[in-house]
């Protein structure tokens, strides 16, 4: 018999739970339960810009025998254009990293809110990042944004900066959920990874649990945005929705992921 940890091929590093308030509707206990059912050895919570649900997730995972990873999907200030902030994923390796994450988020809320977003200044993360792993944020990260504009030089500059600061704790993120510009991003990011010898990591931004939840998720986003979707039944069940209130696109493949070989 082998332990689940040895058979694991993939660990979910991204999940917006209901504590992302707008952009996520996964109930923490359901999430952990589903992971336990599929014998996932570890699981991450990574709400948008907060740790609201972190302790609940931590307790719930621990009692289900799953290793909890505390992470946060953070807003990163875009020094060139404050209205187009970047995203990154920070994962706590240990108590030091956790305390630093608490501090960074607190700083973002108290000192650096812009248009209701609490943004981290890149300089804060360059200074002190012990105990934190950084994922590049795929297409929404600074590197990704530059690559989508074919600005390879800029992308490289960003990546080098993080590489210098985080060393082997910096990963370039790959996501495959059918974004129209996926191929462009992927070609560029694979090249960049090869060039700088950076590790790649696959993630999937979970925001809901079941295919049927997709509609509800969309409705919720709209509820919170106070706008009106006239006819939800016209919504396709995949990523081509024209009603995307956020730039994030969601492909409901979460359940598929759990089918262990």
């Amino acid at each position, binding site marked *: 018999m082998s332990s689940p940890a040895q058979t*694991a*091929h*993939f*660990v*979910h*590093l991204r999940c917006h739970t*209901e504590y992302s*308030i707008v952009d996520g509707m996964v*109930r923490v206990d359901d999430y952990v339960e589903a992971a336990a059912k599929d014998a996932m*050895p*570890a699981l*991450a919570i990574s709400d948008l810009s*907060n*740790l*609201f649900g*972190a*302790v609940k997730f*931590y*307790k719930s995972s621990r009692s289900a025998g799953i*290793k*909890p*990873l505390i992470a946060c999907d953070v807003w990163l200030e875009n020094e060139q254009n404050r209205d187009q902030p970047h995203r990154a994923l920070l*994962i*706590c*390796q*240990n*108590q030091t*990293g*956790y305390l630093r*994450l*608490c*501090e960074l*988020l*607190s700083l973002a*809320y*108290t000192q650096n*809110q812009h248009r*209701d977003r*609490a943004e981290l200044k890149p300089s804060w993360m360059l200074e002190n990042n012990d105990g934190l*792993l950084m994922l590049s944020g795929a297409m929404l990260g600074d590197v990704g944004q530059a690559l989508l504009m074919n600005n390879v030089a800029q992308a490289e500059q960003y990546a080098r900066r993080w590489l210098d600061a985080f060393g082997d704790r910096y990963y370039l993120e*790959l996501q*495959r959920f059918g974004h129209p510009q996926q191929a462009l991003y992927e070609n560029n990011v694979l090249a960049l990874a090869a060039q700088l010898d950076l*590790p*790649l*990591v*696959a*993630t*999937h931004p979970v925001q809901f649990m079941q295919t049927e*939840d997709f*509609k*509800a998720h969309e*409705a*919720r986003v709209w*509820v*919170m945005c106070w706008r*009106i979707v*006239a006819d*939800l039944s016209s919504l396709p069940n995949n990523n081509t929705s024209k009603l995307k209130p956020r730039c994030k696109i969601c492909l409901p493949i979460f359940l598929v*992921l759990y089918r262990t*070989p």
Partner: protein
Amino acid sequence: MQDLFADIPSALQNTVEIAKRCNLSLVLGKNYLPKFPTPENVPLEDFLRDQSFAGLQLRLQSLYPDSAIREQKRASYEDRLAFEISIIVQMGFAGYFLIVADFINWAKRNGVPVGPGRGSGAGSVVAYSLGITDLDPLQYNLLFERFLNPDRVSMPDFDIDFCQEGRDRVIDYVRQKYGAEAVSQIATFGTMAAKAVVRDVGRVLDLPFNFVDGIAKLIPNELGISLRDALVKEPQLAERADKEEEVKELMELALRLEGLTRNVGMHAGGVLISPGKISDFSPIYCQPNGESVVSQYDKDDVEAVGLVKFDFLGLRTLTILAMALQDANQQRAASGQPALSFETLPIDDKPTYQLLKSANTTAVFQLESRGMKDMLKQAKPDCFEDIIALVALYRPGPMDLIPDFCRRKHGLQRVEYPHPAVEPILKETYGIMVYQEQVMQIAQVVAGYSLGGADLLRRAMGKKKKEEMDAQRAVFVEGAVKQGTSERQAAELFDLMERFASYGFNKSHAAAYALVAYHTAYLKTHYPAAFMAATMSADMNNTDNIHIFYDDCVRNGIEVLPPDINRSVYKFKPIDDKQILYGLGALKGSGEAAIEVIVAARETGGDFKDLFDFCARIDLRKVNRRVIETLIRAGAFDRLEPNRNALLAGVNLAISMAEQNGANSAQNSLFGDAGADQAPALPLVPAWSQQEQLQQEKLSLGFYFSGHPFTAYQQELANFVHTRLKDLKPQEQPQMTAGVVMGIRTRMTQRGKMAIVTLDDAESRVEVVIGNELLSQYAHLIKEDQLLVIEGRVSHDDFSGGIRVNVRKIFDIVAARNSRASWLKISCNGQADAIKLRELLQPYCQPKSVQNGAQQSGCAVKVEYHNQQACAEILLGDAWRVHLSDELIAGLKAWLSDENVKILYN
């Protein structure tokens, strides 16, 4: 995912690698107390001891002014104090007590009213000595172990009540003392509740508002009801979800979203004080403007990560007490009496108990509900212990004990004790176990428990865990037998305790709240105007409550003077011990800032002379048109001009003149010079009818103030409604009565929806019950302010002891008039215009006919005609029977004048 990234296996492998690289262990369940800075770094323990003993000295001096008695009592207090200190020190909570004492005493020194205690903390003599609580635990047998149990280490938890307004000042103080980074409040997460989620989803699906509203209203009004429950409880909802496609989609989405976190808020009372930065434990969250700093974790999680929470609760009663006491003391000062203070208020004041016995307790803290009033009448409390017991008993469960309690108190039932040794413990509650403390003491006295052990027993009983209870039972019986009780008696006693422990109440909390209740009752008894003014001032946004308090003032002989633009201030103001001047802040749509502007203008420039003078002298940017209009509607200008309609019509003119005047004032004031002796005139419009005036008043004040809408109908109703509400008595025959609807409550019963409608006829109020069928038939009539004539059966209500009125028939005034009138008599004195008469009558003709098996017909018309020569009375034929609508009557009266149009009744 494996398939998706089969071409890049390292990207998958790295997710596993990352998981391996992370090894975060959160330390949960360990508390980190903030450090209390002592002067000259005296050890915390020594400082606590010094402060406590010094505080006790002061307490003893005021408790026992007679030094001989004081010395006699001293030992018991000092022993208890020393014992408590040793436990506190041993548990490491000296700093906690000092921190709490520090901010409470700061609040007291800085004029923020603080409650005498709350929760189990009132059982500590250390807390009493340090000024944290204001209730002598020894006098009321309050136990320290109920608060801090040496046998079970857990964080102490003082909940502190502050006056609502002062609470933020105390938090500011704490922030300044421990550092802004070390203090925050706590996040709380709002969830999407059943009704809200239905409305939200309805909006997103772009369904019509009324449609969605209809669905949302099907969800029963129960706190915390889930959609799933609603579908079970309201078959109509399930049926529609089943049959209607749109409802089905709405419900499906709503079910998925229900209960999800909807927003981040701030926990009502919790304040965190951290030994370092809050962010060393929890990230913080705040509004974009940097305000409302809260921990990102909710109250459970934030305590789990080690932060210590202090509950700063806002209690409005404290604000009321402080305001009322200030006014009362002004009255006392005027007559040369010394100021009162709550600390020295006698606790056995006869008139106060008289007020309680007569259940005259509207606005009295904790004792004002209808059920509580009924209980007060039965129990007739005559000592403070009775109040404590009533506060503790008035809850679901122990409520069943109230009749026994009352009978025993009044000697109608024998007071029995389950064991002779418990008599001293249960004596104050007439042999009935009411408090958790009593359970603890019984275990101590009968079975030799330590109080700490007894607290564990109490907890076990509360939790009802079988194994734990069996173990405790064995210990108890063994202990009791050792003390000389028979095994059977011990087991019986244990059973009894077990039964009561499940709903026993914390006496410390009951005693502290009983004290606040007593203080309010005392002020209501002796300074009713000051007390009611303060009560109303504290509730100015809720005109329904103002109405209730207003009625109570009237009942207690307090006159509430109408709002007056030249006398009223923002708050309700007691003028003397019998009169209160209406507060302008209680007018709908008037803000504090606007009222302050008005009062300031009056104080600098003297009384306002008229509406024009008023508008000219106030800052119209701060006092806008809406405020002026609401003042007029409320009658605040009556003393300057009684015609409110004219005032309202003149607002535009007054404002534009004031604005013009303002524009001209830079150049030599035109208006001021030339217009001074030639005041502008208000538009000439007729004054409102009384009915109209009342409706307008209600818009502003929220209720009818200067009169009652019933009075307008009274004369006509007297023709056929012979029973006033106050005269309703149980009898077989249905009775007809009438009143204006003042309130409606609906309730679901097995027989469908039922409404309990409060009717008011300016003399009294009666609640009547309207069943499902009538309710749906007359839904259009069952609304507030509607005059209803009802026929109902009056029976004795065993539950409330009063009467119960079951409505059989409902009429509005027109229907009642039509069913009771014999003739409409029209006197045409010289105005024989048959064509005009025909024109007026025709639209309302209702010839005899048979509909639905019942005879339907209009009212017969008699025309009286006389001129100088002769006089005739003609009864018109059945074809000319008419429906007696208000419009018909008004039309006829306009033509022939009031006295010539009469409805005659048999």
